[in-house]
């Protein structure tokens, strides 16, 4: 190729056109462009896409986890409040129960003591009546013996004596019962 422009001293111009080089650069760059479009750009785009997915997926996952955590926290708080209410209720119940038990026991104790007192009184009454019964016969015998010693004769007519004693005692008892109510009945035994 002849240079388009020639410098004054017949040197070739650096601006001269050279077809061989012109064509060469088009071929070389054309090949490079084809290879880059086929093997480079899609690869970069793919890894960008992958990364974007990874990041967006990560963000979505993180948000999900955060929502889950918030939900769990709320749930725990609700459970905690529920447990507190329940505990308070249980405490209240226990206090009521304790009070009830104390009342019960007190009632029982009072009943028991009343019962014990009543039985004591009953026993006392029966012992008293027994003592009275024993004393009565003994007093009769003693009075007879004493009278015998005083009178100096044998009062062997038992039947007559006994009826006399009995009558005497009945008189005493009648006097007593007139004074004190609720005295033991049946003191007068029928004469033999």
């Amino acid at each position, binding site marked *: 190729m002849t240079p388009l422009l020639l410098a004054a001293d*017949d040197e070739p111009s650096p601006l001269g056109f050279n077809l061989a080089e012109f064509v060469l650069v088009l071929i*070389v760059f054309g090949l490079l462009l084809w*290879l880059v479009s086929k093997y480079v750009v899609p690869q*970069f785009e793919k890894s960008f896409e992958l990364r974007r997915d*990874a990041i967006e997926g990560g963000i979505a996952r993180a948000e999900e986890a955060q929502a889950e955590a918030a939900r769990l926290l709320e749930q725990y708080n609700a459970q905690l409040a529920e447990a507190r209410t329940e505990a308070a209720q249980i405490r209240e119940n226990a206090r009521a129960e304790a009070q009830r038990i104390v009342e019960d026991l007190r009632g029982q104790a009072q009943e028991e003591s009343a019962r014990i007192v009543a039985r004591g009184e009953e026993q006392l009454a029966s012992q008293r009546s027994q003592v009275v019964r024993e004393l009565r016969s003994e007093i009769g015998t003693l009075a007879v013996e004493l009278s015998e010693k005083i009178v100096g004769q044998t009062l062997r007519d038992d039947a007559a004596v006994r009826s006399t004693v009995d009558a005497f005692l009945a008189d005493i008892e009648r006097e007593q019962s007139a004074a004190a109510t609720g005295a033991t009945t049946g003191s007068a035994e029928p004469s033999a």
Partner: protein
Amino acid sequence: MSHTGLILAAGKGYNTPGPLEFFLPDFTGKQWNEKGYDVLLTKASVLLVVGAIVAFAFLRVTARRGQVVPSKGQYLGEQAYSFVRNGIAQDIIGAKYRRYVPLLLSLFFFVLFNNLFGIVPFFTFAPFSRVSFAYGLAALVWVIYIAVGVMDKGAFGFLKHTLVPQGVPGWILPLLVPLEFLSNIIVRPITLSLRLFANMFAGHLLLVLFSTGGAWLLFDATGSIVLKPAGVLAYLIGIAIGFLEVIVATLQAYVFTLLTATYIGGSLAADH
């Protein structure tokens, strides 16, 4: 080639580097001659191919694994990819950017690696300092942004969209339409290619000048006492320019890609 003897110096002359530095001989030894320069198998062509291979290898290796949690290499590739995809394509083209990501990505890394070859040891030549390579890429971009516009709006619609600015009084249109045609259809591919070419060309020429000049001052020039320190200084400046070239290489790749995106975006834009 001029052998410029410096006034200060005697001894072996200095061969000043010039545009011929860029007319590399091919591997059979064939050179530029008065009939022209019709060689292809030069270092520039080989480096161009290597640049494409390196660009593809870099992108392919970093893209291949495609892990959700990227390795260091994948991270680097993804950063680079996102830079072109989001920082250039999406920001400038707008909603329909996806289709043009492969083109912009290829352009950016193809131009970037080729430009960086300008300072890679043993390569030390940026293929785009051969203007025809830049012409080729710019022509491709030209065809693409016109085709995109025509497909989007139809041939007439695209011409109207490109050439007739809205909200302008009718009597001024005969003046504006040719201007718009010139700037949007004719000048764009030329500036696009020349910008890239000239930056690479100038950078390479500076590197050649300071390194061969430094070597000549240090080893060949005899005469003044200041020549050797000047040679050391020339080397230091050459190294600084090397670092500058890294920035220029990256910036030019970015600008080329950005303008391509701008042109495509302009073709797709709704009427303003």
